[in-house]
């Protein structure tokens, strides 16, 4: 683990089975995809559609976990559960945490692309 709470071993295992190019492509995909999911999740709260928030965070949780981005994965999991239970304020707080984590996470992922 490191300062952004990510697990580089997860990416290393992916490099072994899929090669460095696949890992670079997965990371680049995630860096485009994650902000979209956050936006959809926020819109769900604003529009009173917690189902949309739940689905967006569920998806973000899985892809973050697949790349070893543990803090985003955990925040998404928490937000997903809160949204599923109808707790809009709780889900919004979880989203705020994810947004706060994103800049450092993006920086870490950018470093991983260069490896």
């Amino acid at each position, binding site marked *: 683990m490191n300062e952004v709470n990510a697990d580089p071993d997860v990416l290393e295992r992916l490099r072994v089975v899929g090669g460095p190019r696949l890992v670079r492509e997965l990371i680049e995909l995630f860096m485009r995809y994650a902000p979209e999911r956050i936006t959809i999740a926020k819109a769900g709260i604003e529009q009173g559609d917690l189902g949309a928030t739940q689905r967006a965070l569920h998806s973000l949780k*899985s*892809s973050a976990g697949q790349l070893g981005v543990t803090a985003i994965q955990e925040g998404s999991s928490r937000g997903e559960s809160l949204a599923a239970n109808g707790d809009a304020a709780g889900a919004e707080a979880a989203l705020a945490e994810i947004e706060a984590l994103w800049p450092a996470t993006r920086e870490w992922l950018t470093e991983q692309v260069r490896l």
Partner: protein
Amino acid sequence: MFTTTPALAASIARGATVAELQEAAIAGGMRLLRQTALEKVAQGVSTLSEVDRVVGIGEGTATQRVLVVDDDPVQRKLAKAMLEQCGLAVTEADDGDKAQALFDAGNEPFQLVVTDLCMPKMNGDLLLTHIRQRHGPPVIVLTGSEDGTSEARLIELGADDYVRKPFDPPRFVARVKAALRRAAM
């Protein structure tokens, strides 16, 4: 054990591109050693899936087709890469509606469906039920659920297996191969 020609070995030694490897493989009419492919991957010249795909051209290796359904492009891309790496052909769909349309059209017969559960539009439950009602191929469900009861429910709905997300690629491939093997019996 596969063999390689001297020309192909020389290409590999000088760090050939995938296109050069393809030319050499076709010219030599032989397949790369798996170890050699792994070395190419380790060097970052190519991915194992690319090398396998290139070397497999014209040899009829991709005879079984898998439909991969997931709205998450990261999971979908990883699943596709892993399946192609072991010689399977893959068709992708990013939601259940598109998957159902592909399945119903029947243009590409699928030997297996791998589907996410939580998707916009038609979710994995409904897609699974649709495929089962039409006596379709085996279905493996990818689930990010941490609730074990939902997995039991999926099996009751007709899923042949389930894989928890995030998934471990070698285990995922092993489950897919096992499902295909059972279906062929």
